[in-house]
């Protein structure tokens, strides 16, 4: 939920000479300790998920007796919800990028003057609108439009975090594409549309991937819209599945934690697989 400023994440990547890190074993040890404390809940999640039926007994500190029963229960009971979340999140990524990318380009390269500032300000203001306010109004609008309990309804609502974030991130990145390159395309007779597709999009690959990944995470992690804009069990994203799970089955924690682990996999995949793109997208964006 960090929209807006995240593009500053790693601005200084090239600032320091990338020499070898000095050996300071004490620092490394303290660093590992900090990490251990911060990540204990995640360890616990995995640990509990691998334990045999933990019917309200204290979970052993280490998973000595590993079983995947928690996962098989989780998949049979929550698998459908995982698929629902996947469909909605991918939909939100596509929709957000289609909407946000041209806007980001327009704001970075067209001489829109005052209007660019107004739109940018509008985007910043959106950050102050509480989700519950949006949900409150959308519920009645969705009810009239027949969008409650529908995939398109959730895709549209779940893009609410991704679109402003993507515009800000990609605008910063596209601003760093030299105007001369785009102008060269105009000289060759390309219009705005062709220049956008054949030059700007390929050059912005990293920013697009980064914006897409974060939009995916926002939509995947959405709980409030899942809670308020679905009223039946027919269409239930995994976050809501997990919430109702915790409310009803608290006796047995291993399937619940297995569900939590499964719902966290995209985050882990993002961190592992996409770091290269994200670092590049984010750094490029910050350099302006």
């Amino acid at each position, binding site marked *: *939920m*960090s929209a807006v*400023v*995240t593009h*500053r*994440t*790693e601005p200084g990547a090239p600032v*320091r000479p990338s020499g070898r*890190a000095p050996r*300071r*074993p004490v*620092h*490394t040890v303290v*660093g590992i300790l*900090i*990490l251990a404390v911060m*990540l204990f*809940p*995640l360890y*616990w*999640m995995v640990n509990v998920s691998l334990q045999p039926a933990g019917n309200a007994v204290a*979970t052993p500190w280490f998973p000595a007796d590993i079983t995947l029963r928690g996962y098989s229960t989780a998949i049979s009971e929550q698998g459908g919800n995982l698929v629902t979340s996947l469909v909605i999140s991918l939909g939100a990524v596509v929709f957000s990028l289609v909407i946000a990318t*041209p*806007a980001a*380009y*327009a*704001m970075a390269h*067209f001489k*829109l003057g005052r*209007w660019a500032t*107004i739109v940018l*300000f*509008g985007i910043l203001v959106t*950050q*102050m*609108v*509480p989700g*519950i*306010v949006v*949900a*409150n*109004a*959308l*519920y*009645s609008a969705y009810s009239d439009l027949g969008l409650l309990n529908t995939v398109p309804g959730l895709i549209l609502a779940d*893009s609410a975090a991704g679109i402003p974030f993507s515009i800000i991130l990609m605008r910063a990145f596209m601003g760093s594409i030299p105007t001369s390159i785009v102008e060269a395309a105009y000289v060759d007779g390309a219009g*705005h*549309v062709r220049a956008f597709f054949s030059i700007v999009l390929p050059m912005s690959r990293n920013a697009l991937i980064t914006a897409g990944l974060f939009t995916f995470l926002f939509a995947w992690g959405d*709980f*409030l819209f899942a*809670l308020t804009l679905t009223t039946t069990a027919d269409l239930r994203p995994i*976050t809501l599945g*997990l919430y109702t*799970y915790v409310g009803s089955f608290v006796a047995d*924690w291993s399937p619940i*934690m297995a569900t939590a*682990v499964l*719902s966290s996999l995209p*985050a*882990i995949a993002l961190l592992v697989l996409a770091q290269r793109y994200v670092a590049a997208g984010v750094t490029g964006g910050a350099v302006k």
Partner: protein
Amino acid sequence: MADPAVGVRSRTAPPAGAPAGRRGSQKTQARVVQVAFLVPAVVYLVLFFGYPVVKNVLMGFQAYTTRTFYTGEAPWVGLANYSAVVGNAIFDRTLWNTLFFTVGSIVGQFAIGLAIAVFFHKKFALSGVLRSLILLPWLIPMIAGTAVWRWILDTDNGALNRLLSAVPGLDLHPNWLTSPELALLAVIGVNIWLGIPFNMTILYGGLQEIPEDLYEAGALDGATGWRAFRHITWPMLRPVVTVVLVLGVVYTLKVIDVILGLTNGGPANSTQTISTFSYDMSFRQFDFGQGAALGNILILISLVFAVVYLRINRKAVDE
């Protein structure tokens, strides 16, 4: 709320006195294409942020209940919703809870986030890997985080109380999530945990931007360690700090998943904030009018805060 569409839409139509001739129409055409790039995003923002805010303001003055969905009628009731929610027995409680939750979360997240950022700013083996792994709590679904914390904070078999009971001479079994005195504290604690990675990331980015030679120059003047932090790091970090704090407050005021996931606002409303109260009114008691009134109060609080803060720090945020 600014309505960015108003201005942009008027541009869609070619200006009345557009110069005639080929050149002119080409120019107009280019303008139309340019505007077409921006319009979908503006329309989306208006529909999914502008409309809800306007609608919510209106609903705040209406008797908007389950009946409305059948009859389509939502009579105007003036300030009745506001007097009902402010007069509600738990309103004061939710206001205080919102304040404690916001201030407690921000102070904790910021202080710990800054400490970790400063620590990882030093170069040491594995620092990059460890630093990126710290981001994980931020990237997992919040509701998954709250689910595991519920089991960690369980009174009888939770990991935290088992650790506490292992301390000799300490016979404590706090009811973290089920006693009205502790629940808010526990919820704040979990929210701090969730917020540390965000604070750390942005502050670390700020630290990276401080030129290395400032420290070298400072070291010549004897500014090292704590003094270097006070006289170089902190002043240079100020703009980033402002951004982190403003966003932190704005985000924390509207937090809802952490509280619903951990306590559902209970026990005895001890963790109910304006956000969750608004949710409760609209979606559990189906009084959308009162829910909207609470939502509007929340917007007002965050607006007042943001305006005051931005005024004080205008320069810092302009960057």
